[in-house]
């Protein structure tokens, strides 16, 4: 269920939608950016009220020397913010208001920094600086005095040509340093507390394009050596979560852009594909929600603890004119009061975002929900539902609560609102259970009565029908209908009876119309767990076409092939037989539709297997039909069916090409028409 958030969607499209502010928008833009989420049902970008609003911009007012290209942020437990003020060759400490406290990095001597790109402060207050320009890690005491430095570690495992250009780092409780080395594909460089190299950590996977794979398969070793080696993408940023996980961000990868690594280097997100391809940094709050900042569009994305994206907000501009707009975000950090601090190295500023009341309710509700504390989450979800009626997760959460409170009917409605089949099914199971408990005996007796009465009625009707003289046309239709049903169960005999015979168009038409009707009913009338999506998204024409287009092509192809291959059947016969082959679909789809309303998700297999049965059945009928109508032996039939299938493919390829060309021609004429008029 939560996996639905996982489904990738084109980020580019999403951006397009967000930039549609070209003609005046209906509601005036108050914040300079929007907050939105992707509605999985419609694929639309739905705007919501903000979860985060700008709380200030820092960098020049109150600074003797304004920030210059700030590129890393670290927030301590007491919410003091350390900034790698790269352009000024120093580390700056700010208080929780963003006021300048002090700067670290000495004017000369060993403590002089050169273009530091990263900073980390331990619990004890020791300041580690990725002193990039000096190719070292510089360590300062709590008081800001230079303590020691670590250069490139000596190790036989490190290649000679390995450049030690540290850009970011974190230090764990044991004093082990995990260092991001610029443009290094090996992953994080790990140094123990003494500065000894202890291996690489958490490297990305090499991404091979299909061309690379082909080359690997085809080229020999020598040729391969000449190819430029494919290297995994480099890690760009690293952060330490409260629980000791390492959060790495890499940009320019197609998956695993955001990883949560445990001590063993395993990614909790399993190299998941994110739709944010240019993440420059990510941070985590105390409830384990993740926040990523995208360099490409200046948007900040909020993820749940499993790494599923919940919301986006923000925008980008070349020059930053407005609060909340980012130009070249370099780092993001989350303070303990859940403010987001984002450094922007192009505009030489740090922007701070604070959570809104809505954001607080939503994220609290979601946190409790993910932790399974449904009861506690109730007031928050109710608050969220009041403020925003668009988000599916709200209804999922409320559904879970109703389920917990044994309000099964309400839960069903809420899960239906959330398009959540699993939850719905769970609630429905309880409803059904209650119902069976209460009415089982009546139901059995009722069913028996209905069966018995129905049988009686059927018999009486048949007796009556047989005892009466019918007009010849009705007799014919009746017999043909009977034959259609008979063929379903006795195909060889049934199809044999069809030879040299003309079934009336009325009955053929009726079967096709029935099949189409059942198809439509199956689209709209199946139980909710079989279509947990917005029905208006269904393309009815398309779903009819998926049934009838192959069927119609089959008729044509089968006739064409058999005619060449010496089959006996005429077109009419093929048509008749193929139509009769639709009967199992009609016959079995009715119980499927009825059952779909009764079963729960775990029993879905019943419905699915019936569906599979009628498909197999129909295919068998088509096969037998070919054999009987054209009077082939078994092997001939197999051959014929295979050729027919190939023909179907050819026909479709042909149709697609014709359609494509036709469209081009039409477009050409239309463009000429447009030019002329």
């Amino acid at each position, binding site marked *: 269920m939560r996996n639905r958030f996982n489904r990738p969607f084109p980020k580019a499209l999403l951006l397009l939608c967000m930039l549609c502010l070209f003609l*005046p928008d209906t509601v005036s833009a*108050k*914040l300079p950016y929007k907050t939105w989420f992707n509605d999985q049902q419609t694929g639309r970008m739905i705007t919501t009220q903000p979860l985060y609003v700008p709380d200030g911009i820092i960098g020049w007012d109150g600074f003797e020397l304004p920030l210059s290209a700030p590129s890393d942020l670290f927030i301590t437990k007491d919410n003091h913010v350390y900034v790698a003020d790269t352009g000024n060759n120093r580390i700056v400490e700010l208080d929780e208001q963003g006021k300048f406290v002090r700067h670290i990095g000495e004017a000369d001597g060993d403590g002089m920094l050169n273009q530091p790109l990263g900073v980390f402060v331990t619990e004890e207050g020791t300041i580690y600086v990725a002193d990039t320009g000096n190719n070292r890690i510089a360590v300062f005491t709590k008081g800001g005095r230079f303590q020691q430095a670590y250069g490139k570690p000596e190790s036989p495992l490190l290649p000679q040509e390995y450049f030690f250009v540290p850009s970011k780092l974190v230090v764990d409780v044991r004093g082990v340093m995990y260092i991001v080395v610029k443009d290094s594909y090996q992953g994080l460089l790990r140094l123990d507390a003494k500065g000894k190299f202890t291996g690489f950590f958490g490297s990305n996977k090499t991404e091979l394009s299909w061309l690379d794979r082909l080359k690997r398969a085809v080229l020999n070793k020598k040729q391969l050596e000449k190819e430029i080696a494919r290297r995994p993408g480099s890690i760009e940023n690293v952060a330490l979560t409260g629980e000791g996980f390492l959060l790495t961000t890499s940009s320019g990868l197609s998956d695993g852009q955001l990883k949560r690594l445990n001590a063993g280097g395993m990614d909790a997100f399993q190299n998941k594909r994110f739709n944010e391809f240019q993440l420059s940094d990510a941070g985590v709050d105390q409830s384990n929600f993740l926040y990523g900042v995208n360099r490409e569009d200046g948007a900040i994305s909020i993820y749940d603890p499993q790494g599923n994206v919940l919301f986006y907000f923000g925008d980008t501009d070349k020059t930053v004119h407005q609060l909340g707009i980012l130009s070249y975000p370099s780092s993001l950090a989350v303070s303990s009061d859940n403010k987001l601090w984002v450094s922007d190295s192009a505009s030489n500023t740090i922007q701070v975002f604070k959570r809104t009341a809505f954001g607080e309710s939503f994220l609290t509700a979601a946190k409790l929900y993910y932790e399974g504390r449904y009861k506690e989450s109730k007031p928050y979800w109710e608050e969220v539902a*009041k403020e925003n009626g668009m988000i599916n997760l709200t209804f999922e959460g409320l559904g879970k609560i109703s389920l917990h409170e044994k309000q099964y009917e309400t839960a069903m409605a809420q899960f239906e609102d959330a398009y959540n089949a699993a939850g719905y099914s769970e609630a429905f199971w309880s409803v059904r259970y209650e119902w069976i408990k209460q009415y089982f005996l009546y139901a059995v007796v009722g069913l028996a009565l209905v069966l018995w009465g129905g049988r009686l009625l059927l018999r009486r009707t048949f007796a009556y029908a047989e005892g009466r003289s019918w007009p010849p046309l009705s007799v014919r239709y009746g017999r043909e209908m009977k034959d259609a049903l008979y063929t379903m169960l006795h195909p060889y005999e049934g199809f044999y009876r069809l030879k040299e015979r003309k079934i009336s168009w009325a009955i053929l038409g009726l079967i096709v119309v029935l099949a189409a009707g059942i198809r439509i009913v199956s689209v709209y009338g199946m139980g909710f767990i079989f279509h947990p999506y917005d029905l208006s998204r269904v393309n009815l024409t398309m779903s009819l076409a998926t049934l009838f287009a192959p069927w119609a092509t089959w008729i044509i192809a089968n006739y064409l092939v058999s005619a060449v291959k010496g089959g006996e059947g005429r077109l009419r016969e093929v048509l008749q037989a193929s139509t009769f082959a639709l009967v199992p679909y009609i016959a079995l789809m009715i119980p499927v539709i009825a059952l779909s309303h009764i079963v729960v998700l775990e029993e879905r297999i019943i419905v699915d297997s019936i569906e599979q049965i009628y498909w197999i059945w129909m295919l068998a009928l088509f096969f037998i039909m070919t054999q009987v109508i054209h009077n082939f032996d078994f092997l001939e039939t197999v051959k014929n069916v295979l050729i027919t299938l190939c023909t179907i493919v050819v026909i479709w390829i042909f149709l697609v090409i014709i359609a494509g060309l036709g469209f081009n021609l039409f477009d050409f004429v239309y463009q000429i028409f447009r030019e002329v008029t």
Partner: protein
Amino acid sequence: MALLAAGVCAAIVVVTAIVVASKPALPALSEMQIRMPEQSLFPVYPDAAWSPGGTDANGYAEAASNGKFSLLVDPGTSQIAVRDTRSGYVWRSNPPAEQLEKETVKGLQLSNLQSPFILEYMTTGNTQRNMTNALEPKPDIRYDTFDKGLQASYTYEELQLSFVIQYELTGSGLEVSVPTQGIEENGENYLLAINVLPFFGAVSGTEEEGYMFVPDGPGGLIRFDKKRIAGGVRYDYPIYGDEIANAKSPSIPREQISYPVFGLKRGDHGYAAIVKEGKYSTWIKAVPAGIVSTYHSISANFVYREEYPRKVSRLGAPINTMQKERIHRDRRIEYRLLSGEEADYTGMAHSYRDYLEQSGMLGKPLESVTHVPLQLSVIGGAAKVTSGGLRYVPMTSFKQAEKMAGELASSGVEKLRLIYNGWQQDGFVESERRFPIEAELGGESGAARLIETVQAQGGEVWFADNMAVMDPEQAEVSAKTEGMRGVDGTVVFNRQGKFMLNPGTAVRAAKKTVDTFAALGADGLLLQGPGESVFRDYNSGAALEREDTAYLYNSFLGYVQNRFASAGTVHGNDYALANIDLITELPTSSSYDVIVDETVPFYPIVLHGSIAYTAAPGNLRQMQDEELLRAIEYGAVPYFILTERPSRQLIGTSYDTMLYSSEFAVWKERVAAEYKKFDQLAHVYSLRISDHRKMSEGVFVTTYEDGTEVTVDYQANRFDVAKGAAK
């Protein structure tokens, strides 16, 4: 063969004729008494040469005087100054020369500081913008006199460019005009823009206390004493927003300028500058100290040609190209000089309000009320995008709206102004094909009954309509014939595939809305489009300037006001003010500009008592508490947009980008509770705001003309109303 061809042609002609004839023609503009105005241009005074008498110690010669003010000119540099005869205070067009000696900028930037204008031009075949002023190269300057004023003509021999600036004293200050007839381009050089008096009253650093006032949102202040971010961030935006016909790439959303005013306060003096003519192609430009020079300066930039991205091929990146034709419009700006008490943003607002009143641009005052009206917009229905085309989604029927009105009345809402949206057939709100009223909602008879019921309860029923943005899937008119055309001659579509309807057609097509609902007895009409969007239409043969669009919209609003008791617009640009009584969604916050230090209720001060206005709908606030308090601080009236059915059903319609919570059942109690808060301000509904000030951090007081004080405390999240002694 020829016969056949002739036959086919004849058949086509006949069919076309039948199709054309069978389509009901839109009513003519004249049926609404709308006639396009004749353009009369400002005169130029060619031969009344003025010769300066003696100059004073500062190099100024007196050129004109009207008792209150005298106009001084430095004949050499053509710098001007205005002296308040009573106080002797002098406003200078440029910083005095002795002060400039300390200035560190050099070259053109330094000479700009000494010039009464900055001119931008371009040479044919060259895409570079060039800048010049009254010093580099020095133009030929000639002075002529007229009535109470002085005309300075500038001729650049080399550039073959010339233009004139006219200065005239008024009762409240100085009027500066640039007549279009005075502009001559005889060679290869084209005029792009004239920035007049770029440094009028400019303040150096923190030599004086004060601020620049910019028309951002409700009003914004750029203070002199704030340190600025490096990187050249300035305020430079066009009045009424970017020209959409010039199809610039979308930028970060901001509140567009909806009133042509800017101002400056220095110490005990200040001015409000009102762009009176040519405001549709004027930019307002504020540059704080430290960006270019050490001066804080604010001015109007008169734009004559705009840059636009010209698409060369479908795939390639567009090339920036300059508009060919010069915008032939006169430009005029009045600096209303203020001092003492009035020399602040409230004074500037009062001054602008006086101007609007004097020139008949502000409608009749509101009548006093015993209870504040609650503006309740309801959405009838909408069109949802589905795989099978657009599908109708009913949200609130007329009956359900009646029920809402009843429930609100019983929960204490004393006066309701129900605004019914989305009554159009099939929920086609972005279409000129509106009628019949959607049957599923109750049709015309349902609407009539709704009006009757609500009016019987003492409320009002308005209907809402959209005139500008059209969805080609909904509209009947073809975008090709009636859509706004961009500068390259093609119809401009936004990325959602929508287009702007030609304003003439829009007005003609909307007549039926007016007539139908007027006949049904509705109380008013709320229009989306006329209050917020002005644009050019480059349709060959029927090209429209932004002025024309505004004129058409405004005339239509006049027609609406004739037929109904009241009229309203969504947003309210100043040109529409004469013909409306209500503005919805008036911006109450700024664009979050880094350089705007404070947001002030300038526009609310101008409007209050004449036009009722709402802030953002109460159910769609971005920050609940702050925005509610802001609405009360700014004297707005309560507003909600609600639906009977859950807002969730709007997913897939054009409303899903804005209406994230609208279900009546969810909001009912909060509406009633909020109404009671706003109703405490009922007695000031028709009064003007006489003062607004900041008491302390987060505490603001708005004073009305009867002495009522509304104190809003954002920190304590509360407000108090202290009634004044009624006059």
